[in-house]
């Protein structure tokens, strides 16, 4: 499996993570620490309820950007490997939007890599959220710094 994947249908982040570990040989006792972040669709944002989300992206640039973020983070942190899966297209409340998993021998590197990847993804990866709520549709205007 490749490190980065976009998917258009609901996915199970934890099943994905297991498959990735197996396919990359990370489950054979060499990497003791796995740090994972899963971002899911909330049913509210800025005080308004949200019924549906649409995730637009920039095909080509998105994958390239995520691959660069992962490669750069692994080099910076010394973590062994990492996996990023991100939904695109329509998303319903409670569905998972993003998985970031980082694998390392030690937990400090795994946590650092996982956190750095999600922060860089939120800052740079070309995705845009449009929310559908009771008051109609609106584009989410920006990602908060560290929420």
């Amino acid at each position, binding site marked *: 499996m490749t490190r980065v994947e976009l998917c258009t249908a609901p996915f199970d982040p934890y099943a994905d993570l297991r498959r990735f570990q197996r396919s990359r040989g990370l489950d054979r006792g060499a990497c003791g620490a796995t740090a994972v972040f899963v*971002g899911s669709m909330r049913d509210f944002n800025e005080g308004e309820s949200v019924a549906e989300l649409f*995730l*637009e*992206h*920039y095909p*080509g*640039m998105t994958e*390239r*950007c995520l691959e660069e973020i992962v490669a750069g983070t692994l080099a910076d942190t010394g973590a062994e490997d990492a996996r990023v899966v*991100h939904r695109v297209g329509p998303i319903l409340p409670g569905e998972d*939007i*993003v998985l970031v998993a980082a694998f390392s021998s030690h937990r400090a590197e795994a946590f650092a890599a996982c956190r750095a990847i*999600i922060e860089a*993804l*939120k*800052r*740079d*990866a*070309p*995705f*845009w*959220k*449009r929310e559908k709520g009771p008051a109609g549709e609106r*584009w*989410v*205007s*920006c*990602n908060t710094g560290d929420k």
Partner: protein
Amino acid sequence: MIRILFFAGLAETLGRREVDLDYPGQVDVAGVWDRVVGAPRPDRLRCARNQVHCDFGAAVQDGDEVAFFPPVTGG
């Protein structure tokens, strides 16, 4: 020729997602915007050249892909 892409709310506002521009000779990303959109650039507009984030002063070559978009909101 330069291929120009717009995304998200910006594409909706402009009413288009994709434009081709005959290569006008020496031009930067800001110049591409001016030629194709002709209106002031919105606050917080971002751009990419050949699928890599860049500044508005980045030089554009014939055959490049230039993209304009609002701040990203993934994750």
